[in-house]
């Protein structure tokens, strides 16, 4: 897009980059905020149906479509309270920390080929790492509220998130190993084709590890049954007990943003990313197999694909939330340390052995192997061209030269 602006319209490159950045930021922000609106409504409806009620019915027609919007207006108008003993700066800062972490992680998330804010060669780890920072918002909120409920909630959260990062990291490494790259775009590309190319169906171990990943993901975004940090029956509302109004809604948006993010990550890592179960685009001849030449329609289709998968993931989380009882903190830790981590480790070893002895899989197909990718790197010194969708922060030399020319 930036090239388009520079070459066709003739904008100076810095302006083009800024424009692209602004558009990308705007889009991501909309995904989070708009997504949150939709998801909150969906959650209410789902909860109601599971509990055999109707849920919102009045605002905006029969299904209460506009309920979330009305809630949002209410929150905006609500008085913003701060407890007396609170640490003012930290109290105000905490929601933004949470929200920013969730938002930043979206930067590296590919929605389709080339539809990615920042293509990093360590995208997987970037997303997981930045998502892990969200916990700081919670901790700060818990501490700054000067309320024991908040503090308890925050401490539980800290313990839980740090623990669950271990099995989560192990699960994430498996697709990385299969694809031979930590680049999310590459990982998703490797799963192009039919349904069977998705990593979840790569072998039995990946199938198991997908569910481990999903469990850990639910835990790491603090959703029920792992929502110890805000267990309302014990801790009032946990870390956000003292928050109200817009600040509270920032926490809420961060939560829904993270839910969407881990689901989208699951989709990219295990469920084929933006590739549908049937390679429609290549069957119809819209793209000749290489993603670069695909028209924008294909990318749009990819976006829809990925969003659909991610939304399905979020809906399952809601389903779980309203079906399962909450775990105790010791059960949460047991799940992590005694079940998830060993299972993830075993499955990791299993996938490794599978790759070693059955590299083509049971069904011979055109699977990419990590070794092949590395070999390509060794021979060609880099199997990919420097990313064209260059980020703002990390400007490789190519674009630095562009900048230099425009001087």
């Amino acid at each position, binding site marked *: 897009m930036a090239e388009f602006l520079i070459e066709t*319209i*003739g*904008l*100076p490159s*810095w*302006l083009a*980059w800024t424009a692209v950045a602004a558009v990308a930021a705007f889009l991501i922000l909309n995904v989070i905020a708009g997504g949150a609106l939709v998801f909150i409504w969906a959650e209410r409806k789902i909860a109601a149906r599971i509990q055999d009620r109707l849920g919102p019915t009045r605002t905006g027609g029969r299904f209460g479509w506009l309920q979330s919007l009305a809630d949002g207006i209410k929150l905006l108008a609500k008085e913003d309270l701060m407890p007396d003993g609170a*640490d003012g*700066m*930290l109290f105000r*800062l905490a929601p933004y920390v949470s929200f920013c972490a969730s938002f930043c992680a979206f930067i590296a998330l590919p929605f389709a080929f080339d539809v990615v804010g920042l293509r*990093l*060669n*360590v995208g997987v*780890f*970037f997303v*997981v*790492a*930045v998502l*892990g*920072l969200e*916990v*700081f918002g919670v*901790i*700060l909120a*818990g*501490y*700054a509220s000067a309320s024991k409920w908040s*503090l308890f909630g*925050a*401490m539980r959260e*800290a*313990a839980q*998130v*740090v623990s669950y*990062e271990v099995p989560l*990291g192990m699960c994430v490494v498996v697709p990385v190993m299969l694809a031979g790259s*930590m680049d999310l775009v590459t990982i998703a590309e490797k799963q192009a084709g039919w349904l069977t190319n998705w990593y979840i169906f790569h072998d039995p171990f990946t199938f198991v590890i997908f569910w481990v990943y999903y469990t850990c993901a639910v835990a790491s975004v603090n959703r029920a049954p792992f929502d110890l940090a805000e267990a309302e029956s014990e801790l009032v509302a946990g870390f956000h007990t003292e928050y109200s109004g817009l600040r509270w809604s920032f926490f809420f948006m961060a939560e829904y943003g993270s839910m969407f993010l881990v689901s989208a990550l699951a989709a990219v890592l295990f469920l084929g990313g933006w590739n549908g179960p049937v390679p429609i685009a290549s069957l119809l001849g819209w793209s000749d197999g290489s993603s670069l030449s695909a028209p924008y329609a294909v990318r749009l289709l990819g976006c829809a694909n990925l969003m659909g998968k991610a939304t399905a993931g979020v809906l399952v989380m809601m389903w779980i939330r309203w079906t399962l009882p909450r775990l105790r903190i010791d059960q949460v830790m047991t799940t992590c340390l005694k079940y998830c981590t060993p299972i993830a480790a075993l499955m990791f070893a299993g996938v490794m052995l599978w790759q070693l002895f059955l590299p083509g899989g049971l069904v011979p197909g055109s699977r990419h192997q990590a070794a092949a990718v*590395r070999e390509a*790197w*060794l021979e060609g*010194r*880099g199997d*990919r*061209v*420097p*990313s064209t969708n260059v980020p*703002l*922060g*990390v*400007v*490789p*030399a190519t674009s*630095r*030269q562009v*900048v*230099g020319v*425009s*001087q």
Partner: protein
Amino acid sequence: MTECLLAATTWLLPFAAIDWHGLFFLLFAAIACGAAIMVVLTDNVVRMALHLVLSLGATAGLFFLAGSEFVGAMQLMIYVGGTLVLLVFGVMLTAQTQLVSLRTPAADRVLAGILAAALFAVLVQSAVSVEAWRRPGRAEVSAPTATPLGMALLGVRVDGDAAGHESRPLSGYLLPFEIVSVHLLVVLIGAAYLARAKRRRTPRAVELVASVDPPPPVQTRSEAGESASVLVGGGR
């Protein structure tokens, strides 16, 4: 028309040739340094932790800018997301009202400030005095990938041309990669041992030695701020 537009924007905005790399470097460096200094100046330990998070997060940004994306991501994941959460956890476990803000005596601060300024002056002087380090970077580099790093950790070096000297084979890092896991295991055992609450049923012989045990701890400290910090003046 586009020419006019271009000319107009260039005229309106004199920083047209803005250097994003330099700008982001400045931004991250400012955050890293500012937050680091705030860590020193703040008395409240929770705010110190926040500033530390900012500082180390910005350092991760600097790693990204230097092309070490993997190290940057690891810094975010392990350091900021793991180590610092642990530290904050410790802060909260010990966060009693009188311990949150332990003020340092002013004399210590002044002394430490002078020493730190001197140290900083020496370090900066040495950093800028080496001519080779002041030269700007190469313009032409390939996009970074984590492959050579991964191969190096496996014990195979594939990046021979980067280091410049070919006199001897570069070392692979298989051994430290493996041995550090043993270290982490041992350390984990040690930390778990110390954190385990279980009191022993029978005291060991060594625990009956009374002579070195001090009187029971005092809960409050009213005379806070009298004695010099143990690291500045009280080192014995």
